[in-house]
């Protein structure tokens, strides 16, 4: 489906709703126009007030009147009647050429896409050759062979447009062939034909429909163009193109002649293109969004707007760099509501300290990091809370001031180093750019410092590596570069979002050691986001465990691993692969991580918890002083550590 050009991002929920109602109206209007077109084409003889060919030289070039609603042309023929008969030619032309294009293009495309090898190579070179000649020239050449006339012109256009269907069909086959489910089908033993027809072909239908609408529009324009230059429909037959050809000769005398056929072409092409756009957007949404991301379900419990209670706030710590209180981030939903993704989150980090933010997918841990920087995507809103960095609340700062804070006081390292570095520039220039923009260094000073930094993060031959592009580096090297860039302005807080998850385990160890080493030297605080408790055990001083958008437990690292207090922490610990080396059955947490919007109303872990009691149906506050836990039975439960 990658062959369908997409005209925008996956729409944010609120936009999607408005877009949906808007597109419904568009489809109705455009559909009505096309229906009218087909109706006029079918019943042209009955509907049109005059014979389109009947001349009346006395009444030539008349303006619209009661007798001739759209006036008359140079030979006194009724423009409306000619326009209506033009519908017939438009429908025939579009149908004929598009059908020819599909019948030639799709089978060949499917065949060469699946067969590959020499067939593919030769056919694709021929297609490239045809495509490299302007379309109208190809049509002209074919018409030189066939002679002029409507049907010959449509054969020419059909052959011309078959190349786009061919490429589409081939593209879909090639893309789908690499899909894992096609691999699965091959493993099952499905034959080539079965895979092509049963698994791949159903996926070609949506882009094919889109391509068909695009082709119909293009054919109509091309037919008009060919008739306009006298190579398509031949006078005196009425087609929109020939009508415009006549109009062209009388632009100075009677410009109105150009208006009716022009509007007819525009309205028709516009209608078909708009329908194509709507189908394409629907297809894009249906397959890429709905299939990949589970749409928020309506059954979520309304969340009371609880103000953060004093008890939930972490006690003040010496040398605090960052203090977040009562953070709440929401996403707007399809029905106009606001769905919380993070609620009532408070935490603080001191100078030189590493705080781990641990949780599974959908816990809101990554989002917390982005919210601190004010970099959440447009659909999300930070609605409550304060984010105090070095004594200033970032939420109250104007955008310009926040841009100053970013990089200088807080920086971020992302999960995938190969996508978080800009592929278009050398890695060195990306570090030097920050130094120049933030510290105003000269070009040469910035470069010298860049090479120093690259050297500092343990990359051999730093001068040479600075000139490399991101894709030329291994994942571990690229992550070192990203770290060097983040530290270039000596920030007091570094947010590291799963910085080792995309790396091999031996490289992960090196990167963790590098973080610790750099922290000892630069003294920054680190907010370390990870799903891996073992990584957190290695790098963190304190750990916050997150589940379903809220913090469920926070403790010093040794205490947390020795004596977890929340049942979820305990469950997570024992579920880690390294927790035991025994044979199955391995300990599990039943059920699965709830998606935002499906969180239980009371304790959000209650539907998976083995210790649930009636009181867990209520919202549970975070309690404690130096260790925090969000469980009403925390005091009575004695949970064993994993080991």
């Amino acid at each position, binding site marked *: 489906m990658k062959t369908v*050009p*997409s*005209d*925008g*991002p996956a729409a944010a929920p609120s936009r999607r709703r408005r877009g949906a109602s808007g597109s419904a109206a568009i489809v109705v209007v455009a559909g009505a126009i096309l229906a009218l077109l087909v109706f006029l084409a079918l019943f042209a003889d009955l509907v049109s007030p005059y014979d389109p060919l009947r001349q009346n030289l006395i009444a030539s070039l008349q303006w619209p009147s009661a007798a001739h609603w759209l006036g008359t042309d140079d030979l006194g023929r009724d423009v409306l009647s000619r326009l209506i008969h033009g519908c017939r030619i438009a429908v025939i032309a579009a149908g004929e050429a598009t059908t020819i294009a599909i019948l030639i293009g799709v089978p060949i495309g499917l065949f060469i896409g699946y067969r590959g090898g020499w067939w593919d190579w030769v056919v694709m*070179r021929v297609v490239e*050759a045809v495509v*490299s*000649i*302007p379309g*109208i*020239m190809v049509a*002209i050449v074919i*018409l*030189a*062979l066939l002679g*002029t006339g409507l049907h010959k012109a449509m054969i020419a256009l059909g052959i011309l447009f078959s190349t786009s269907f061919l490429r589409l069909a081939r593209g879909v086959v090639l893309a789908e062939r690499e899909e894992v489910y096609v691999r699965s089908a091959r493993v099952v033993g499905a034959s080539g034909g079965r895979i092509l027809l049963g698994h791949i072909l159903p996926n070609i239908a949506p882009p094919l429909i889109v391509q068909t609408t695009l082709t119909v*529009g293009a054919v109509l*324009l091309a037919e*008009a*163009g060919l008739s*306009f*230059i006298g*190579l398509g429909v031949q006078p005196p037959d009425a087609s929109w193109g020939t009508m*415009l050809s006549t*109009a*062209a000769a009388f*632009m100075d005398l009677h410009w109105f002649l*150009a208006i009716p056929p*022009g509007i007819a072409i*525009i309205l028709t*092409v516009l209608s078909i*293109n*708009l329908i194509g*756009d709507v189908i394409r957007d629907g297809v894009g949404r249906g397959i890429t969004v709905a299939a990949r991301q589970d749409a928020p379900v309506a059954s979520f419990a309304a969340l009371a707007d609880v103000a953060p209670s004093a008890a939930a706030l972490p006690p003040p710590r010496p040398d605090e760099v960052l203090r977040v209180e009562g953070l709440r981030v929401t996403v707007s939903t399809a029905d106009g509501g606001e769905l919380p993704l993070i609620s009532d989150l408070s935490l603080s980090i001191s100078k030189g300290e590493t705080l781990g933010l641990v949780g599974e997918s959908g816990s809101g841990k990554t989002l917390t990091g*982005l919210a601190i*920087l004010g970099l959440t*995507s447009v659909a999300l809103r930070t609605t409550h809370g304060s984010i105090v960095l070095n004594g200033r609340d970032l939420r109250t700062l104007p955008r310009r001031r926040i*841009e*100053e*804070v*970013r*990089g200088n006081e807080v*920086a*971020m390292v992302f999960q995938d180093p190969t*996508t*978080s*570095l*800009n*592929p*278009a*520039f050398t890695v060195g220039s990306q570090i030097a*750019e*920050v130094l120049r*923009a933030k510290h105003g260094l000269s070009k040469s000073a910035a470069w010298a410092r860049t090479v120093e930094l690259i050297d500092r993060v343990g990359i051999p031959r730093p001068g040479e590596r600075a000139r490399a*592009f991101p894709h*030329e580096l291994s994942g571990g090297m690229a992550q070192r570069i990203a770290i060097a*860039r983040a530290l270039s*302005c000596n920030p007091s807080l570094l*947010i590291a979002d799963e910085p080792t998850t995309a790396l091999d385990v031996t490289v992960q160890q090196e990167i963790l050691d590098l973080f610790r080493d750099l922290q000892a030297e630069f003294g920054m605080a680190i907010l370390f986001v990870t799903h891996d408790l073992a990584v957190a055990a290695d790098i963190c001083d304190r750990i916050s465990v997150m589940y379903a958008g809220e913090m469920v437990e926070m403790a010093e690292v040794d205490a947390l691993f020795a004596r977890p207090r929340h049942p979820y922490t305990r469950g997570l610990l024992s579920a880690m692969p390294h927790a035991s080396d025994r044979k199955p059955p391995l300990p599990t947490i039943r059920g699965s991580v709830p998606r935002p919007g499906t969180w239980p109303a009371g304790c959000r872990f209650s539907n998976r918890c083995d210790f649930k009691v009636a009181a867990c149906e209520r919202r549970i506050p975070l309690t404690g002083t130096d260790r925090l836990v969000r469980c009403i039975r925390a005091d009575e439960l004695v949970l064993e550590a994993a080991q």
Partner: protein
Amino acid sequence: MLRLIVQRLLALIPLLFIVSVMTFSFTSLLPSDPVDLILGETGTQEQHEMLRERMGLNEPIVVRYVQWLGRAVQGDLGTSFFNSVSVSTALMQRLPVTLSLTLVSALIAVVVGVAAGIAAALRPRSLIDRLATVGATFGQAIPNFWFGLLLVAIFAVNLRWFPATGFSPLSASPVDWLRSVTLPAIALGLSSSAAIARQVRSAMVGVLQQDYIRAARAQGLSSRRVILKHALTNAMVPVVAVLSFQITVLLGGALIVEQVFAINGLGTLAIGAVRQQDIPMIQGLVLVMVGLVVVVQLATDVIYGLLNPKARPS
């Protein structure tokens, strides 16, 4: 960069070969015998045979292809069947006309398309975005020649700001040239600017969601810098591919738009040649167009390589 150019040139060899074979075999596909076309019903049997011999039509097809290609490479594309004019001369006379029209319209399309696309992408669903989207949708539905007629009616016939027809060579008077080329170039560039605007918008929206944009923002680089440097460089990568295709489209569109403005370019030549089945002329036209497209593709490939380091040969 030299490696890239050499590599792309090598990759173009099969393309040029196939185009030349297709163009050449065009003669044999024609339903009527070229000798009959030239002599009509008139000439005698001997005259037919003589001409056949003179045109080398009795040689094996491979020999004829090699001979034809050899001459074509040296710039000899034969003579027109109808007025004994050298095809190369005719083409060279018309080429600057069509070329200036195409290039000016490409410039308009790029400037308008890129600006509108960026403006729309920066504020999705804003008024600007909606206007740009509606404009682009209409732009792609309006036939260029009709738009040309409209421009003539308004700006040439009514307001008399520009000449309605004709073309003044750049070498004669740059001002007249600009006046004569403005209306046709706008008419021609409209749909391409719409296509480019759509592509820029979608590429830009996609790029703005990438991690490296977030990372650049996290480093505290100014929005302006992030958008114009980090995002635009990457967003232009798919746009350049579209641009290369659009120039081909513009070249074809020029053939039609020339008719609206009575400009004596390649289009007029092509239409005449088709009507008269003037084979050498049509072959020449195809070769010239492919030659232009190849140059454009080469240029885009180089720009593509500059924008996208991954595309460079290592």
